[in-house]
């Protein structure tokens, strides 16, 4: 029976990869970009869900770790000429400038390219995880909104450091001309791997320990779970995927700069996680796809509209007004369960007296 289930998933994966390969040839470049972004946001949504939804650590540091991944991948994959063109204000550190892609002579160029790209993504993830470890170790003793603000603070610190480290990151000017990888199989394979990874994690003993921490910290530590160790684990894993997602984002859009990694980016991911449901893997996947497409589809809201009887001017901001409203409505309607539980509790108390 178990093998049957595995088989079912394998078939599902193969079918989706085939569909994606076909889509890759049918879609125009704009549509391809959106489908690509869906994969990126699946990874980012799952990464935030691991930390916030499954482990119950309210972290708002996503954008910072994404930035680490994005810059790492960009610097590793950009050509020397591109780097020289970008760094016209201040030259790049020679070591980073001379970093060049893998070149094993007997392998065809695209294989070299592919291996190097995977290596770059992995490095992006690992570096982000290291940052996660560094940030997590001091702040994970905090709880609830203190943790939220501290992680948001760290994310901003990372951004400020990026702006100031001109010889590494080109500062506020950002990086242009990152080699764009838009083949859908690249991004979606990694998204599927992430789904598999998070599912296996949550099925196993460690994932369940994470959930136990979310449910009740005091009970969890009384059951012998080392809170700090497990929180750091979850946080670093989450950062790893944020880094990978950030790296993929960079190679999907080709241009990055520090303003991209402001809190608004974390907000987008939070929106996905809240709509999909905290601690729900398939919900996150579905909502990542819906939100990403909706973000693009609703771009018309920001543009001038012809309503038949009247024409409006361009309305920049309207789209995000709509999304902020959606977030608030979802959260207000979802809280019903919590409200009901509260009611029961209050009633129980009066009944007892």
């Amino acid at each position, binding site marked *: 029976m178990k093998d049957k289930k595995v088989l079912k998933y394998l078939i599902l994966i193969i079918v989706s990869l085939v569909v994606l390969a076909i889509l890759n040839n049918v879609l125009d470049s704009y549509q391809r970009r959106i489908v690509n972004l869906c994969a990126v946001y699946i990874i980012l949504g799952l990464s935030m869900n691991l930390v916030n939804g499954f482990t119950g650590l309210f972290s708002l540091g996503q954008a910072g770790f994404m930035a680490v991944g994005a810059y790492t991948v960009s610097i590793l994959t950009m050509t020397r000429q591109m780097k020289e063109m970008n760094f016209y204000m201040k030259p790049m550190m020679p070591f980073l400038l001379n970093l060049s892609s893998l070149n094993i002579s007997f392998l065809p160029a695209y294989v070299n390219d592919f291996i190097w790209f995977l290596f770059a993504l992995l490095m992006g993830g690992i570096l982000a995880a290291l940052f996660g470890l560094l940030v997590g170790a001091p702040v994970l003793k905090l709880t609830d909104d203190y943790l939220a603000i501290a992680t948001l603070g760290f994310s901003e610190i990372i951004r400020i450091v990026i702006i100031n480290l001109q010889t590494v990151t080109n500062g506020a000017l950002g990086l242009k001309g990152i080699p764009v990888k838009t083949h859908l199989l690249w991004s979606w394979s990694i998204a599927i791997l992430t789904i598999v990874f998070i599912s296996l994690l949550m099925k*196993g003993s460690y994932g369940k320990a994470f*959930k*136990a921490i979310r*449910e*009740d910290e005091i009970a969890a530590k*009384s*059951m*012998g779970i*080392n809170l700090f160790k497990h929180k750091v*684990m979850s946080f670093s894993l989450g950062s790893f995927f944020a880094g990978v997602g950030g790296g993929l984002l960079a190679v999907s859009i080709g241009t990055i700069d520090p303003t991209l990694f402001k809190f608004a980016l974390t907000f987008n991911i939070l929106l996905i996680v809240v709509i999909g449901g905290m601690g729900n893997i398939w919900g996150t996947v579905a909502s990542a796809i819906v939100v990403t497409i909706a973000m693009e589809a609703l771009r018309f809201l920001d543009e001038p509209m012809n309503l038949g009887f009247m024409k409006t001017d361009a309305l920049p901001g309207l789209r995000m007004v709509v999304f902020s409203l959606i977030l608030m409505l979802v959260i207000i309607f979802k809280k019903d369960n919590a409200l009901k539980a509260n009611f029961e509790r209050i009633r129980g108390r009066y009944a007892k007296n």
Partner: protein
Amino acid sequence: MLKIDDVTMQFGGVVAVNGFTAQIDEGQIVGLIGPNGAGKTTVFNVITGVYSPTKGRILYGPDLNEDITGKRSDQITNLGICRTFQNIRLFKELSVMDNVFIGNHLRLKSGLLSSLLRLPHYRKEEAEAYEKASYLLKKVGLYEEREEKAYSLPYGMQRRLEIARALATEPKLLLLDEPAAGMNPQETQDLMEFIVEIKDEFNLTIFLIEHHMDFVMGICEHIYVLDHGMMISQGNPSQVQTDQRVIEAYLGVE
């Protein structure tokens, strides 16, 4: 097994426990009683590392050579002391099975990576953990409910689930905080038999807090009585029952 040596626990100006000393020997069932607010749960919290005592020491082990004062809760549980909670603290949104399964997590030898890749030795460990959890659930009569979420169980079952979860950590010393709270006489009677049964089967030493006097008197070999954080009496059930100070503490002095 356990020695509480002159422990004082102070919160700001409030002295919750004042110079409490007690000793529990291996294989005993020892009771801790006292009126509401006497500091009983605080004693448990100090033993299990939720609080670090203001003064005094907690010694543990066959020869009482392990000083566990101020250790972290998870370290203490690792050494073989596990507890239940007065106000039930289950992992509410998780299944009954998962609650007990998580109790085994501290005994897991495989690392994160082998769990992720589901390497053979992890799979073996996991299968054993599920087997153990199933056994414990059958023991407490919750096997049929294993797929239910913990919060959906009735109160009495939740108490039994907490005990099963604690047993999954493989404790040597089990601390039960009001295990019979809210139970009717028949259920209380069953619980007494159950506690003796698990004590024998798992070689446990048990330290419990309880308000049901029949329960405490019927099951405990030794009893400590706390009032306003001070120990006012100790001894076997009949000694404690006839102690004038205990009667005064419960009924008040005219």
